[in-house]
């Protein structure tokens, strides 16, 4: 779920800040410390994101959150033109990307400091963190140094 902070009539619209639900609390706690974690089934070792209560590989119910490298590649992307939320009106067109982490799980996320013409499938990326509020930090990604080589 998403909560949008209350605004006065003259405030600029605020981007939605994810509500931290219990299942994803460890993810946001780690993000606050600028660490990227995913869930790992302690029965079969499957990594997953976002959180599930039971493992869809083995139906085990014991899990831990483990740090991942934060490296991956762009698996796919779109470029949003239509404004679905007023806080994104000044951002369009902007890319949303699916990052496939080196460890396997995929995340829908967005890029920092990346012009649209450099967004391409297969580009190497690494995690970067954007602090949204005192409680919520959002893991985003940047093109990694390697992909900047000519």
């Amino acid at each position, binding site marked *: 779920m998403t909560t949008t902070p209350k605004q006065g009539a003259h405030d600029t619209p605020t981007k939605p800040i994810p509500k931290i639900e219990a299942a994803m609390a460890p993810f946001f706690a780690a993000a606050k410390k600028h660490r990227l974690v995913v869930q790992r089934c302690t029965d079969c070792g499957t990594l997953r994101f976002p959180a599930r209560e039971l493992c869809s590989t083995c139906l085990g119910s014991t899990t831990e959150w483990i740090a991942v490298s934060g490296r991956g590649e762009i*698996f796919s992307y779109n470029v949003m033109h239509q404004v679905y*939320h007023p806080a994104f009106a000044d*951002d369009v067109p902007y890319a*949303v990307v699916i990052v496939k982490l080196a460890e396997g799980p995929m995340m829908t996320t967005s890029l920092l400091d990346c012009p649209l013409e450099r967004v391409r499938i297969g580009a190497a990326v690494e995690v970067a963190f954007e602090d949204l509020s005192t409680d919520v930090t959002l893991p985003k990604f940047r093109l990694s140094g390697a992909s900047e080589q000519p």
Partner: protein
Amino acid sequence: MSSTSRLKGRLAIAGLGATPQGKVYDRSHMGFAVDAVRLALLDAGLERSDLDGILLNPGLAWGTAAMGSFMLQQALGLRDVRLSATMNAGGASAGAMIQHAALAINAGLCTTVACVFSDRPLKAPEERTNVHEKGSASSYVFPRGLDAAHGQFGMNAMYAMVARRHMHTYGTTQDHLGAVAVTQRQWATMNPAAQFHDRPITLADYHASRWVVEPFHILDCCLISNGGVAVIVTSAERARALRKPPVYLWGMGQGHPGGDIRETLTSGAALAKATAFPMAGIEPGDVDVAELYDCYTFTVLATLEDYGFCPKGESGPFVNEGHTAPGGSLPVNTGGGQLSSSYMWGMTPIAEAVVQARGEAGPRQVPKHDVVLASGNGGLLSTHTTLILSPLPS
């Protein structure tokens, strides 16, 4: 004979009812549903008292629709119903309702079932509460947690990711997506009920149309619509005694592949056809007309591949070569489909399949229409249903 093939030709669609669709505001979702059933009964030459089954696929305007089929029964004034359920597998629901109706009738639970979809996602100008509604499909935006924080909203954005991946993997191009839009608009110009029947488009028009979310222009996206459709299923024997020529159910199947479609790029059609085609006793090459669920241009491409109408990854050239156009080897979405006529979830392809199978399609009628396929697709290529229909009993 396998046990499943005993169903072939035993059940039929006997009635089709469709309300006005699109920017139509004069009824609620319930009003559209009741009116669609009324029209289907008229079409079939049946009385309300002949119905003993009611299945409902509730569109978004129904909300959570707890006991939706019962509420619809009450609104219709139906007594002594022997089969009732509210079903939702997204755009695969309409096909699934017809399948469940066929199974229930064949098993003796009931005799005559109305399968109903309605929705009213579009708001009339006076109903809109803020500028962002614009009467468009605000209910399809689904703002969710992390996705929304990154600026990803709704089904358009999710399908765009899969389409982009298909383009990367198979070399599908923007022109290929455009070819689907242009071809379906060609068909729509021959369907007076299509919302864009009077607005033919060229590939240049397609490229010039505004982006919604790349790689989708507005012309890649279905026409979110208000309205309702009902289909009446009964036994073949009973259907032969009714007003309209029966449309026989030759085969049916479902496919819900699970896993991550973004990686496989393969819809449930691949699995559903493996049940439906042998039941109908057909191969892909036997299909005369295909009505394929087309929430996006891209969905048509993936579905063509997964039914085996062309090899995987070659749907773009297949459409570009005109195979799916009027006069082509495999006419597809002959009423204009959800892209150019109206988006009634899975009922759009089924309704046009019934019209084609009956030979009632007027200028757009496909001359040979002995085997008509209708597909349904829900989620992100996640759920799928296949119906094989024919004017011939076997």
